[in-house]
């Protein structure tokens, strides 16, 4: 049975939040807008392109917004995007419970005698 496809939004947010560096980045831009260069400086053990890639993933997931100022790009946690963390869990359950319903009803139909026996029991 092929794996079911999860909504793209769920994948993006889950993937973005599954990495420690990206969670650290999100924390750094939670209250303050920061330039990409400042953020890269906070991770001296990491190359600047690697930090940029993490920021790109956070942006794609809608978790940070980018404001260009001159030749700099300023990052900040996106308040709307962050509600996605709660929304993500909500969407996940909506999605999964729909699949649970289908799977359980399929199993029940495969064993109709069990269901009938149960219903006839007072």
């Amino acid at each position, binding site marked *: *049975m092929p*794996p*079911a*496809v*999860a909504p793209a939004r*769920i*994948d993006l947010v*889950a*993937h973005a*939040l*599954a*990495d*420690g560096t990206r*969670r650290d980045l999100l*924390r750094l831009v*939670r209250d303050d807008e920061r330039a990409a260069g400042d953020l890269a400086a906070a991770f001296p053990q990491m190359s600047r392109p690697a930090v940029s890639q993490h920021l790109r993933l956070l942006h794609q997931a809608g978790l940070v917004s980018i404001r260009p100022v001159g030749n700099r790009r300023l990052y900040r946690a996106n308040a*709307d995007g*962050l*509600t*996605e*963390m*709660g*929304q993500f*869990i*909500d969407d996940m*359950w*909506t999605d*999964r*419970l*729909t*699949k*649970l*319903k*289908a*799977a*359980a*009803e399929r*199993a*029940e139909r495969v*064993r109709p005698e*069990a*269901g009938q026996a*149960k*219903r006839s029991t007072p």
Partner: protein
Amino acid sequence: MTDINTETTTIEQTVRIAASPETVWTFWTEPERLAEWWGTDAEAVAEPGGLFRVVMESGPVMRGAFTELDPPHRLVFTFGWEQNAPGEPLAPGSTRVEVTMTPDEGETLLVLRHSEMPSTHASDHEKGWSHYLGDCLAAAATGP
């Protein structure tokens, strides 16, 4: 159906399933059945304290433990992402899921409540994240 209590930051969903609670129960406690709807692979030791682990197809791994089991009517387990360190949002053990299955005319009314665990030893930093997530759950109730 979704309802979110903003005071306790609990997500609640209800689904009606044309199957008996006994059948639905097995889809929460048997690994091969969990793999039919939640993830691609699952481990479930259906006893208090037993490991509950589900690998989702999009990558994240849910790691938790069963805390209460009353077959086939009610089960409670902790829920977190295996990759998240303690104190981070949705770290293992940080949230709680309660599932109740009530028989109704040969079918099952399933209610799922997902809530934050009370934090007992959070530093200010961790508390901030806990509140952060709480705000997010609350905001999800009203929508963007």
